[in-house]
């Protein structure tokens, strides 16, 4: 693998770009590995990378049923933020944001992380109080957070609809270090960096069954043959329940729902932040990509589904929200929209934990927020697999928290997966 640096750039520029090596190998599966990670999305690839980097466990395989970056890694709105308040969550997401800040250097791959600020609008004094409380908690834990009054907001983002009489904009809660990144580059960067450290990335390798021995999973049946793993990690958010039942483990506190995202045609620079418009539980978030496309999304489709395609009522809802807050987008054309399948959990928080099978580890339940979490998710999942005990940040992110009554419910929405934003 050729390192990206100024010297190689100049050298290859003079040589007709002919000396670049491929980004990662396409190896044949070995018969056994120290760790097998199922799921070649951002979380699986990051886990493999940190296993090799932080814990020196390099005999690792990542199994991906399609191609890497083809699942939810490519089906998100690329927002990175750490505005969480619950114990466990805020430390975790803040560490994730810190990893994002150095990720391009870490991976020697430009993930185009842009700290352009995450601007959450509020529309009533009650909403202002509520969000102030959350952002004060963030500040107490050393995360950056601030409130913008209407004057500042108008100066920073002049194109919003400041004449909405139903939901007047009163100001915004802002995290300046938040922003977005290029999702494909994150998948490719982690794959390339993990591969360099010796990790085998096995694409088109679908898991079809497990062979159990003495209570453990001894081997994994895949479309590319039988693969043994001393330790096995699931990182297949969206399809976690399917794999969980394949391992005969019963039910999970998860429902699969689909979430849509939208990309418009490219326009000249109009929006330099990530803007979130949330009224009465509804939800709309928008940013502009480096190419100029408006990238935006809304709520779930509101019914359980494993289909990776969105339905039309939500397209209309999102378009209405866009018009309410950003009327100048009225004549912009939509280029693409797609849906990803989310693990929506019973309290809206994730799982990085051990399972009833002693050599199986679970990484799941990312709800709306898997993209921003991926570096820390890989970090702490690798830590769990290597050290066999959870780090204090994720000590309650397990399946037992519901029975113990220590749910990590940021929204306080109760045990209905579709209500956790």
């Amino acid at each position: 693998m050729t390192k990206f640096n100024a010297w190689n750039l100049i050298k290859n520029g003079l040589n007709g770009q002919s000396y670049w090596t491929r980004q990662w190998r396409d190896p044949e599966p070995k018969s056994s590995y120290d760790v097998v990670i199922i799921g070649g999305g951002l979380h699986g690839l990051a886990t493999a990378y940190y296993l090799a980097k932080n814990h020196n466990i390099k005999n690792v395989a990542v199994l991906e049923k399609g191609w890497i970056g083809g699942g939810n890694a490519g089906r998100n709105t690329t927002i990175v933020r750490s505005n969480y308040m619950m114990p466990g969550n805020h430390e975790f997401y803040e560490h994730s944001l810190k990893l994002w800040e150095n990720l391009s250097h870490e991976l020697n791959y430009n993930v185009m992380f842009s700290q352009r600020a995450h601007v959450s609008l509020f529309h009533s004094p009650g909403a202002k109080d509520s969000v102030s409380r959350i952002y004060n908690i963030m500040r107490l834990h050393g995360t950056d957070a601030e409130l913008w009054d209407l004057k500042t907001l108008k100066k920073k983002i002049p194109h919003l609809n400041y004449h909405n009489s139903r939901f007047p904009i009163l100001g915004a809660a802002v995290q300046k270090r938040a922003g977005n990144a290029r999702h494909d580059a994150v998948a490719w960067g982690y794959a390339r960096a993990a591969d360099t450290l010796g990790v085998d990335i096995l694409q088109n390798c679908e898991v079809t069954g497990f062979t159990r021995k003495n209570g453990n999973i001894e081997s994994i049946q895949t479309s590319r043959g039988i693969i043994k793993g001393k330790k096995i990690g699931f990182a297949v958010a969206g399809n976690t329940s399917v794999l969980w039942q394949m391992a005969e483990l019963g039910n999970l506190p998860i429902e699969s729902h689909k979430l849509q995202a939208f990309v418009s045609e490219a326009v000249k620079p109009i929006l330099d932040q990530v803007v979130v418009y949330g009224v009465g539980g509804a939800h709309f978030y928008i940013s502009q990509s480096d190419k100029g496309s408006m990238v935006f999304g809304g709520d779930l489709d509101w019914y359980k589904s494993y289909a990776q395609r969105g339905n039309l009522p939500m397209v209309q809802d999102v378009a209405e929200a866009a018009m309410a807050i950003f009327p100048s987008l009225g004549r912009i054309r939509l280029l693409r929209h797609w849906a990803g399948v989310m693990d929506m959990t019973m309290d809206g928080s994730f799982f990085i934990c051990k399972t009833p099978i002693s050599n199986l580890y679970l990484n799941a339940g990312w709800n709306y927020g898997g993209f921003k979490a991926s570096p820390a998710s890989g970090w702490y999942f690798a830590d769990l697999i290597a050290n066999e005990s959870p780090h204090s940040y994720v000590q309650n992110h397990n399946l037992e928290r519901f029975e113990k009554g220590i749910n990590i419910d940021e929204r306080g929405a109760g045990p209905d997966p579709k209500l956790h934003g």
Partner: protein
Amino acid sequence: MIRINCPYCGERDHSEFSYGGDATINYPSLDASEKEWTEAIFFRKNIKGFQFETWHHSNGCRMWLVVERSTVTHEIKSVKPCHPNLQKVVENNK
């Protein structure tokens, strides 16, 4: 758009309805163990394929329905009233 054939109102767009959830949950008795209640409230089969689920015709007759629907193709096999006695009434009036 999914079209749901409401037994009271006829076939309508799913945007008239609100999704409830798994229709096969049996809540345990009040003195059952915490484990049983945890299982009933928090744990789901999360079926990939045909499942029985509840929908509320919230912008229509406001009745609760049990719908048998595929979570992969969204094809609907059957729609019935939630309440077993109402199921009988609907059957008898056919």
